[in-house]
């Protein structure tokens, strides 16, 4: 291998204190009185021809990686490239549910770390990401589903995660709008209740990481599309593929050289990896969501029903946010379908018969990068210097913080951190999959 790419990276002491003014109530008052504008949330700088690290994808994963590279490792000569605007992918389209009551020990340890980073994020990033720890409830409508809930509760208990199976009466107490009657078509037999789960303001997380990274010197380049990945020495055409190394990227605004390129493009991940000659076991499928007009707040927790393929939460603005399961076939169309809204509404009314007069205001879709075992693909690839942080499917928003932290460490230290070791690309060659699919019917 032609020298370690990290050897080329300059480390700077993250300059703290000198950065932009901090957000605070006092600041709001001061600027309200003086009329002084707030400075830019991130700078508008010219694109350079070379960086130590190029991150493709300005979603939560790319931005968190950039933030932790700068914050934890002093690596700041970093560019985040996005073909549209920051948060234009899944990170600005998701339903922002965070939880850690996963099924496998690997999954639990990983998501629990993310949750703890979310817990302190508002103060860490000095931007209110409105983490709402409102509790997360997964309903069981069949004895089979209840069995899966018990399974998850047992695994969670062993990991010290607050997650347990509750009775229909307890369900009703937590969410009075739910119909827990026994004669409904999909009776609620119980639920897996996870008090630390909740929702977060997804855009704020994106902006917070971008601002924090920018503050430490990382550059944000929007409307900059990566068209190709430049490689040398690989076994495939143009030096791509196994055994080679990455040298940079070709973008819609010119070529950039970089010894390290990180693929954080979620729904587009297989297309980007293909540019380096790396095949990923990923299918891209749209996931649809919708929101209602606002009404006064009545639903205090997140409610998920796997059997009915629907989940719902109510924002502080009063809108109900709905999601479902991924579309049943591969494609890149984010137009949304009528059938989705019909099925969704039918199923939601099954759960909450009283809301038939609420109106669906808007529907949308985002792309999800699905892996065979519903776990991500993280770390190195057969192309030296080309890293992936992909395979986030329908559940990757909540993983943003821990992924960024671990990816930054992987890049800076050239060692795969233990917490992401189970998620390496090589597991698809060895067969040691991480079985989150077992319980991830609606895996948010």
């Amino acid at each position: 291998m032609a020298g370690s790419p990290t050897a080329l990276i300059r480390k700077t002491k993250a300059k703290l204190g000198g950065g932009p003014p901090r957000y605070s109530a006092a600041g709001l008052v001061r600027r309200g009185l003086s009329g002084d504008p707030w400075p830019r949330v991130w700078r508008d700088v010219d694109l350079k021809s070379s960086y130590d690290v190029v991150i493709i994808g300005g979603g939560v994963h790319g931005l968190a990686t950039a933030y932790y590279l700068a914050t934890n490792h002093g690596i700041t000569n970093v560019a985040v490239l996005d073909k549209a605007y920051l948060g234009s992918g899944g990170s600005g389209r998701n339903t922002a549910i965070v939880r850690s009551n996963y099924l496998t020990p690997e999954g639990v340890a990983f998501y629990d770390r993310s949750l703890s980073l979310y817990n302190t994020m508002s103060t860490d990033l000095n931007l209110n990401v409105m983490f709402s720890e409102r509790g997360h409830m997964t309903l069981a409508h069949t004895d089979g589903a209840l069995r899966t809930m018990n399974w998850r509760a047992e695994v969670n208990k062993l990991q010290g995660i607050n997650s347990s199976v509750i009775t229909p009466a307890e369900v009703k107490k937590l969410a009075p709008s739910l119909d827990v009657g026994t004669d409904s078509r999909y009776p609620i037999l119980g639920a897996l209740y996870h008090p630390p789960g909740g929702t977060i303001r997804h855009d704020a997380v994106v902006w917070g990481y971008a601002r924090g990274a920018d503050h430490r010197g990382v550059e944000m380049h929007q409307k900059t599309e990566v068209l190709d990945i430049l490689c040398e020495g690989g076994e495939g055409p143009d030096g791509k593929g196994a055994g080679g190394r990455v040298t940079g990227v070709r973008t819609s605004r010119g070529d950039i050289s970089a010894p390290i390129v990180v693929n954080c493009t979620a729904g587009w991940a297989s297309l980007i990896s293909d540019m380096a000659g790396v095949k990923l076991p990923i299918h891209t499928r749209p996931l649809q969501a919708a929101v209602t007009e606002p009404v006064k707040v009545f639903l205090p927790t997140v409610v998920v029903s796997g059997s009915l393929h629907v989940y719902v939460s109510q924002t502080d603005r009063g809108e109900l946010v709905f999601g479902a399961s991924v579309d049943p076939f591969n494609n890149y169309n984010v137009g949304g379908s009528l059938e989705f809204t019909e099925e969704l509404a039918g199923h939601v009314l099954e759960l909450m018969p009283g809301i038939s007069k609420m109106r669906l205001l808007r529907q949308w879709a985002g792309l999800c990068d699905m892996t065979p075992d519903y776990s991500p693909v993280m770390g190195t690839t057969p192309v030296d210097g080309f890293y992936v942080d992909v395979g986030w499917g329908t559940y990757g928003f909540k993983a943003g913080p821990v992924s960024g932290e671990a990816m930054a460490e992987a890049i800076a230290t050239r060692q795969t951190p233990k917490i992401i070791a189970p998620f390496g690309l090589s597991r698809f060659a060895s067969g040691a999959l991480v079985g989150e699919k077992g319980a991830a019917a609606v895996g948010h």
Partner: protein
Amino acid sequence: MELRLPGRTSTTGVRRLDTERPGEVIDRSTSVPFTFNGKRFTGHEGDTIASALMGNGIRIVSRSMKYHRPRGYLTGDFWDPNGALQVGDEPNVRSGHRKLTAGMSVSSQNVWPSLDHDVKAANGLVSRFLTAGFYYKTFMKPASLWPYYEKVLATFAPGGTVDLDTPHGEFDKRYAHPDVLIAGGGPAGMAAAIAAADAGASVLLVEQEHQLGGHLRFGSDADRAAAGTLRDEVGRRPGIEVLTDSTVTGRYEDNWCSIVQRSHPTVSERLIKARAKTLVVAPGLIERPYVFAGNDKPGVMTSGAVRRMINLYGVQPGDRAVVFTANADGDAAADDLEAIGVPVHRVDARAGEGIVEATGPASGLTGVVLTDGTTVDADLLVTAIGWTAPTSLLNMAGDRPVYDANAARFFGSVQIDNVLTTGGIAGDGTVEELIQHGEATGRLAAARAASIAHALRSATVWATETTTDAPAFPADDRTALERHAHPELYRASTHGIVDYSEDVGSKDLVAAAKEGYDSIELLKRYTTATMGPAQGKLETVNTAAVLAEARGETIADVGTTVWRPPFVPITLGALGGRIFEPTRVSSIQPWHEARGATPILAGQWIRPEHYGDPAAEVRNTRTNVGIIDVTPLGKLDLRGPDVPALLEQMYTNKWRKLPVGGVRYGLMCAEDGVVLDDGVTGRLADDHYLMTTTSSGAGTIWEWAEMWLQTEHPEWQVHVTPVTTGYTSINVAGPRSRELVARLCDDVDLSNEAFGYMQVRRGTIAGVPDCIMWRIGFTGELSFELHVPSGHGLHVWERLMADGADLGIQPFGLEAQRIMRLEKGHFIVGQDTDGLSKAPTTGLENLIKLDKPDFAGKPELAWALEPEQAQILPRIVAIQPDDPTIVPEEACQILAGETNEILGRITSSRMSPTLGRSICLGQVVPSLALPGTKITILLVDGRRVAGTVQEHHAHYDPEGERARV
């Protein structure tokens, strides 16, 4: 800042006119009582809630979201951002659109404690600190207080209140297949409908308002006359179906369109799903509000609002008016005002005149400052500064509208074969010109529909026409409408509200853009502008204009956000429709119920769980004979010479040599090698097979079979007929089952020699011919599974019960069957396997035949069978707790000794009545799978107990002798 406001019944000139207007749609002879915020009022038939309120002198109807500022009607129609009111148990009713009905209880939504005295108006005092997105910058410390802050923020949620006891109501749906679907019943839309119908097309004409006519309804005498003529012509044509008070809400792939019909006589809202051959988009234009200081004070209205109020509802909107006009509609509004005696001060944008701000208290404007510095006394300020093209449906069809600075609005830019536009969205013109364009569009739409219909008829397997005489696809030969020049007017020299529903002002937008949220999408997300109930129809272009100004760019550079469906919000009730998720029962269900069986919902089926004592049912079946209703078992009738090929493809094992009369068990895997389903298939005749699937897999496996036949191997000759409910299925199990079946069947030799285990026969049972019986069963006992034409199911069941009385027959339910299958060690797909269980996990490696040319999952399974994989893939094993009285709960974890390392889990467990001890199946890592291995099970109560891995999956009769006798 005023916190107290004058009484709602204002002293301004808002009131019902004494004299009738020529085009008014209200019936003055009627009196319709209603309440508003608890007070009684009356309106007339034909009134909207808005016109009734204004007719009663009410100028303030709501409060704004953030600053709780008093608000009156701005556009007075469906889009009015201030007009969302609570009506009874229905939140967010568009009062500018909703017809008044007797007894309505109407109230303001966003007020506390009341519309007149709103405490939160105090927020206005600190508005300069509460700029858009302020909440991102505060409430961070102390973190422990955030949940409290969050609760407070949530009280600012706009919108009405849901009554959780609202009954679901009736919301049936309808399908339609019009040749031409027209969205919008103005002059162009109506003309298009007439021309399309005359060309032979079936037309569905959908109009959002309560009458056809569009803007002509509140226009001049000539306008109304033209509308009347068109309306009559439409009415005369049976080929046109008209839906008023209805909206085309979406256009999806292949012109699959959604329509919400609010005018149905018995259903409050109905979803119509239309597969339109061509869609004509003719929604007219939406008048855009103007941005200036004070633009949200009650008394500021658009010209369209004023004309509707005067001409349709006979309502005078004010006493002294300033009309700021840049176009003929503004001029007409001024004329209308003068016609009803309201003095008007005209400010003509075309002559370089302009307005600066609306002055007066929050409760309503009292004056208007003009650009020449003068202030004009007024209680009404009318703006007519241009339009927004509602291009939503075009966007959904793939168009990317482009801004035309000369006309000051967006136009579609992409030609779409089956989507055409006409009317204001396509250009400008006189009524005559609009009608002509509409007609040309209607003709083109009809011709294209005919061509598309022909292609559909000739290109399918049912083709009745050949493609040779296909009509050429008609080119677009219409003369385009002109685009008239219009001044670009978005914001005055002052700042004002841009998004009324979200309380976002132009100052907020500029500040956010300067802060870096400087693309239209980021700006929208950060400030929430355009996110409210009108979804940007009033706000988007103004937002783009303010951003463009802040960035020193053009509106074309900035663009708009993507318009997303639906065009107008739809109730969940209408979308969900009548809840149609039926449950299924077998033909024997009445008997089960009469016997007091405890029902269980299993997937779609309601079936007996047990008849009182499942353990007794097990013991009786093992010693005498029992019968169980297994109708939910999936059944597919397969016919044709290529059935073996299909079976070889779907199952992992081999099928070509299955003789007639034979039955075989097989495993099905998905492409990833994960177990999908299992079951038996029998060969009834040379080209005739019956496949059974698990109950829950019935639908999936049918689709899976069709997938192979339709997309992978269309050359295979196989017919698949799902017959799950065509047969009632009864399993007769137990040592005395042969004796019992023999009593009812005399045309089949039931002896073990003639009809052995895993064989199928056809015969007559209890006088019912053509029954299928096979010797298989889940219980492990000698059994006969009978598939009886379902009309005779109950008869056969009752005969079995009667004739078996002396043999000790008892029915048994699902629970007894589950116990017996566990005693026999049969795994259940989805319970003992999960989404990652590849076939070798089940221990059935011998059923995976890699020497077959192909089958679903073969490459993955080839890999899964490699030796290293044996070290990785978990195994299903039978487990017995060492203490026979302990039944570990299903889902209990299997741990490495005293540690918390997970090595497996219990997937099934029961107390076995036959063995008198607890028995389990579980999944464990390969290192624990050897017989005799000691394992540690963590019970739900926290105790760790020991268990032992068994040699066979079967806890009982491992050799399977009982079934083979």
